[in-house]
């Protein structure tokens, strides 16, 4: 039923779009029925997307919605070919084209500016702007080939300044790029793409992520100028208010599908956010009884990263003993940061108090001693030893911190790891949590995502923590595993009284589980909601409406 509804909705949007876009001529880029799988996981499912000359097209979606995969396909990123290619058709200016490499993409007029800078910091602005396609003396080009021909300094300088001028900015061409502030580096990146002959489509991945609002405004002005030159801009951003003010059309991706397209005068951040999150959130029911007490267990006061380039006033948050607290926001707005500050070794400023004890910055051991534990959202990277057994994964933290699974062997002055105890506990967990495996000695890398997460939860159970941080507990799982994992977390809260902090972009799950939900924007807690409050209001706050700050 949902699929039918979605289809009708899409057809409506598409015909409406076609009507409006007919006035703009042929699409420059047409993507038809694009599908892409990574192993068994489907990242894109029959995505259709057309981009017309002179439009700024927004592409939004939460983490894992398939945005990056779509951009990689368009940009000819080698990872696509390495993982088996994609199905579907891409047409550039009416011609079938399928960029097999980044060079091919450039030849077809597709340029991309990545979120991480791809600049040469020790070279000048001019050299960065012209790198790879410097103009050289045509006569000598013929004699020795373009790659050995001397570069025409004056001509390149002129072209470089022209590229920047088309963005409305002026820079000292001889300044080294490493001396430029972040937003100007971003301009140099864009200038490099714009300066290329035949640029048709410019893809911008989170171009304003590390900019202040003022600088972001300058950037948007520059993009509007480019649009007037007939270049299509595909603008990917988590800052919905920017998307709304800049774009002519916005496509929303969710779980690898296009769920909606919105046109300029009707763009609304709230609608976009709702589409990104999914309508299910409106029907979600809170299903558990409160277990929380009045005692504050974790107190964060204006905690901000020491190293992060994003300026933020800091996170202020209080979590009560026995509470299940949800942290959410749109991707990239820092809702996983409290866990990283407390347990991830990220140096911070501000104040953190845990169970009445002040903590010092960056000390994981201190937090562990106070009974905190974290299951990070990067499960494979940080949460597990993939090349070790289930038993070793489950036992490790408890052995290291609580001296569990260790026994003394006379006359040795130190304890030795007790494999039998660890295996027995792992076996108990395998049965209790329903981990599908051959036994406690099977390597974790051979398990499915859901079973790997259950191993993580077993690690936490072995630690019996007073406070447990969980990042994205259900990411990449099927529905059954999701339910099981959520049930296990709640069981921990109910039986051993663990205070839970769940950082998740799945608002629906948080509404079902949590006592309170803190909504993050731009690295700060904007508002803390009771779980039973109106989800629409949460989405409104998430997508940009700045209400009064209610951090506590």
């Amino acid at each position: 039923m949902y699929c039918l509804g979605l289809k009708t909705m899409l057809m409506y949007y598409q015909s409406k779009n076609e009507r409006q876009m007919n006035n703009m001529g042929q699409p420059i880029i047409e993507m038809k029925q694009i599908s892409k799988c990574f192993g068994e996981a489907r990242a894109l499912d029959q995505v259709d997307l057309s981009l017309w000359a002179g439009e700024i097209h927004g592409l939004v979606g939460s983490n894992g919605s398939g945005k990056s995969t779509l951009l990689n396909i368009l940009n000819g990123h080698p990872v696509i070919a390495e993982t088996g290619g994609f199905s579907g058709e891409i047409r550039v200016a009416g011609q079938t084209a399928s960029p097999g490499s980044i060079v091919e993409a450039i030849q077809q007029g597709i340029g991309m500016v990545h979120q991480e800078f791809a600049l040469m910091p020790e070279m000048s602005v001019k050299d960065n702007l012209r790198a790879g396609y410097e103009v050289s003396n045509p006569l000598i080009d013929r004699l020795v080939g373009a790659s050995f021909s001397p570069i025409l300094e004056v001509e390149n300088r002129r072209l470089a300044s022209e590229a920047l001028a088309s963005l409305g900015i002026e820079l000292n061409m001889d300044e080294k790029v490493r001396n430029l502030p972040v937003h100007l580096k971003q301009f140099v990146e864009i200038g490099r793409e714009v300066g290329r002959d035949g640029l048709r489509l410019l893809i911008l991945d989170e171009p304003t992520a590390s900019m202040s609002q003022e600088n972001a405004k300058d950037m948007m002005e520059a993009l509007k100028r480019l649009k007037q030159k007939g270049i299509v801009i595909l603008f990917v951003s988590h800052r919905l208010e920017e998307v709304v003010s800049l774009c002519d059309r916005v496509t929303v991706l969710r779980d690898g599908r296009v769920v909606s397209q919105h046109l300029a005068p009707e763009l609304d951040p709230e609608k976009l956010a709702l589409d990104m999150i999914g309508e299910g959130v409106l029907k979600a029911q809170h299903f558990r009884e409160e277990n929380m007490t009045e005692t504050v267990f974790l107190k964060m006061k204006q905690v901000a990263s020491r190293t992060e380039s994003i300026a933020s006033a800091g996170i202020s948050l209080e979590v009560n003993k026995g509470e299940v607290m949800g942290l959410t926001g749109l991707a990239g707005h820092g809702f996983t940061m409290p866990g990283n500050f407390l347990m991830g070794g990220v140096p911070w400023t501000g104040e953190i108090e845990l169970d009445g004890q002040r903590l010092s910055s960056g000390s994981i051991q201190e937090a562990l001693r106070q009974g905190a534990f974290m299951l990070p959202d990067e499960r494979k990277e940080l949460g597990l030893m993939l090349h070790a057994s289930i038993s070793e994964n489950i036992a490790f933290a408890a052995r290291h911190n609580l001296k569990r699974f260790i026994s003394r062997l006379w006359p040795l002055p130190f304890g030795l790891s007790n494999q039998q105890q660890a295996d027995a506990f792992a076996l108990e967990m395998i049965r209790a949590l329903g981990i599908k495996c051959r036994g406690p000695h099977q390597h974790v890398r051979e398990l499915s995502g859901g079973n790997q997460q259950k191993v993580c939860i077993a690690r936490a159970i072995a630690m019996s923590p007073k406070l447990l941080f969980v990042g994205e507990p259900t990411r990449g799982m099927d529905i059954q595993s999701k339910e099981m994992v959520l049930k296990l977390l709640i069981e921990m809260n109910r039986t051993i009284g663990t205070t839970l902090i769940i950082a998740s972009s799945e608002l629906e799950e948080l509404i079902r589980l949590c006592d309170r939900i803190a909504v993050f924007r731009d690295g700060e807690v904007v508002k803390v909601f009771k779980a039973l409050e109106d989800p629409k209001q949460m989405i409104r706050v998430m997508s940009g409406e700045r209400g009064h700050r209610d951090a506590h």
Partner: protein
Amino acid sequence: MRIKLKPPTIVILIYLAMLLAGGFYVGLPLFPILSESMVKFAMNGIMVLSLLPMIHAGVGLNFGMPVGLSAALVGMSLAIQFKLQGGVGFLSSLVFAIAIAVVFGAAYGKLLNRLKGREEIAGVFTGFAFIPLMNIFWTVAPFTNRQMLYPVGGVGLRPKISLDGYFRFILDETLVIQLGKISIPLGLLLFYALVVAVIALIFKTQNGKAMAALRLNSGFARLSGVDENRVRLLAVILSTAIAAVGMCVYSQSFGFVQLYDGASMLTFPALSALLIGGGGSRQATITNAVAGAYLYQFVYLLSVPVANAILIPELAELLRMIITNGVILFAMLMERRWQHA
């Protein structure tokens, strides 16, 4: 159980087969070589074992082994200086060597902690820089035992100090069992087994498990409360101290304490032996170290007389150098492939 042989092991087994065929052809007496191989194996084997703690903790191959070897040289020199003989001399050498190795290892470990990800190249340079530094020490150190000093002038230590009258062959000649034509140096082998047991036990402790976690996933280990720098430092100190013990054992078998550039000749063969045994800079077991040490020494012992009889005499040494260094290069190639996998 299926045993998977890695290319360095296969190459050395082929070479061994060729040598055995050659030995048979020239009528080489095999039993004395077998007896000798057991001495050589234990004599060099502890240095191969010393590589394990650092690999176990993900620090990589210990190219800076001369640091530990030098500690042992100082330890043994102290024992000779104090004229400590026999078992007492050897035991006190071990105690001095380990104590100095802990200090040297701590400094070396701190250096490696600052150069995470480049430990192996840092180790090479530490080793090469440490030996000349120690050379200065040998020339100016205020030792007074005449048997240690240059016979002419009497200043500075001589390159080779004889252990005759101190603790020469102290392990080699303890509990030697004669089994037909083969003599088994049981005392030496038992000492070797003791070191193996100590390493195996250390790997089973909380710190040993933390080392393994650091190697498998350092992010996971940190989030689980492992103090990365402390555990890595511990691994480097352990490797250095075991290398020092290895050098003491080597010297008593060799009969001399070889100062100055002597320590620089022992690192690469030890690394190569481990790789031949199927170990690598990311993963190596005690079995790899034991099998590799024996294979390497046996092949070396066999190659000299065979090459002397069949080919030109220098060829054996050249082949040994090619295999030793080639195997290390090969391991680096494999490491690169592993990283990109």
